[in-house]
């Protein structure tokens, strides 16, 4: 018996392939992607790195660097923690399993999308104009942006649960808030904590960038040392950042392992 002939690629597959290839060609040209330029300019890079090493590890630089790194950590911590109530409230409205109605669902989803679409750096610039340069603007920026991201992640976690326990309580006459509190939320606690730790991790790194626009922390010091051409000090700050990021990453990975 003859096996059926293998089908050739469909018109859709051909079309998608063409579009993807064309997009990459356009992107290559628009970003002026050129390995040759990188090879030609290697001296500039070597010069820069030569000035950065060895890093200036004197206490005059390292002391303030550690202080600023701690501020960066604090910005990330407060930005994450203080966004929890807002993210939770919006997530409950924006999850199909808990939302009270279609309009609230759409409104909450739109608000979350907006908060997510505005980068935290832009929020930071806006809040700097209100509260001045400093870490407080960074915390505010993270609260807003993180509410958008974490609210969406939490809402999706709630949409993926088994609806049986919720239905069982709904049959018994429990209200929407009661079913959320006793069937939906208890089922997603591990996912929520995992996502919270992941966002803390991301936010500590984000608060670094916020420093670059004047919202305090070690990013601010990195920016300053670049402007003063003190690349050896910059290298010190970057080393401190490296240690901070790895420590936070390890900590959250450790907690998440213990969670499941």
């Amino acid at each position, binding site marked *: 018996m003859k096996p059926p002939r293998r089908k050739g690629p469909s018109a859709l597959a051909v079309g998608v392939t063409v579009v993807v290839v064309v997009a990459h060609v356009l992107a290559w040209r628009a970003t002026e992607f050129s390995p040759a330029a990188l090879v030609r300019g290697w001296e500039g890079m070597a010069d820069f790195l030569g000035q950065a090493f060895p890093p200036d590890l004197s206490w005059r630089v390292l002391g303030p660097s550690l202080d600023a790194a701690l501020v960066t950590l604090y910005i990330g911590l407060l930005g994450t923690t203080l966004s929890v109530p807002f993210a939770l409230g919006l997530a409950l409205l924006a999850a199909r399993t808990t939302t009270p109605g279609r309009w609230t669902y759409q409104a909450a989803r739109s608000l979350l999308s907006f908060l997510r679409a505005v980068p935290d750096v832009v929020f930071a610039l806006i809040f700097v104009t209100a509260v001045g340069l400093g870490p407080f603007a960074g915390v505010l920026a993270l609260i807003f942006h993180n509410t958008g991201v974490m609210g969406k992640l939490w809402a999706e976690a709630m949409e993926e649960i*088994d609806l*049986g*326990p919720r*239905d*069982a*309580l*709904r*049959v*018994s*006459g*429990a*209200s929407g*808030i*009661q*079913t959320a*509190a*006793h*069937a939906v939320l*208890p*089922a997603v*606690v591990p996912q929520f904590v995992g996502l919270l730790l992941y966002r803390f991790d991301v936010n500590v790194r984000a608060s670094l960038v916020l420093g670059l626009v004047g919202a305090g922390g070690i990013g601010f010091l990195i920016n300053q040392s670049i402007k003063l051409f003190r690349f050896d000090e910059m290298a010190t700050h970057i080393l401190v950042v490296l240690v901070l990021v790895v420590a936070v990453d390890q900590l959250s990975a450790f907690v998440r392992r213990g969670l499941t």
Partner: protein
Amino acid sequence: MSEAALVIRGLRKSYSGRQVLDSLDLDVRSGELVALLGANGCGKSTALRCAVGLETPDGGTVRVDGRPAMVFQQIHLVRRRSAIDNVCAGALGRLPLRRSLTPALFPRELREEAMACLDRVGLADRAAERAGRLSGGQQQRVAIARALCQRANVVLADEPVSALDPSAAEQVVALLADLAHQRGLAVGAVLHQPALARRHADRIVGMVAGRVVLDSPAVAVGDADVDALYLPAVTR
């Protein structure tokens, strides 16, 4: 005879053109266990889901004495909460919001009542254990305790023992029969084990293609009656 606790008349339901319930009539009286038998897809589960409001019927009426409680094949407890917290959750409908946002706010009388319900199903000693750590049969008994804590007069069970081993299944169905006879509950249970139904139920209702074709006291139901319910559609 007094009016039944659950009265279903002329219930109709179809999914995308397929008629699942075709003018179904069903009564369940207080103090009796009614077993619903029938082949897969004959509409037993849909009938129960319409009765408790999880599905909206296309037509017909459902009258229930009070709010029914439902027991599911998949049990549907909150696995991360303790058995007693799960039982207390059955009472949410009559608690004010401020006493019910977390289990820590549940009134003491409720916890005592829940404990009595767990005791009734023989699991008082496991009250503090996480529901997810109990065996399937124990979890199903916790779910029944939750129905008791809801103070429901009508308990509907959708294949409550299909996922349990034979001895756990026997225990759960016997418990449902006991609750019907001693507490005067009206219990309707979809079962896939005709032998269990004939041992424990007071009345057996057989369904074929969305209609009731058999409704008689369990003692009067013979093997041929049961076999007829499961014949393939072509030979029917």
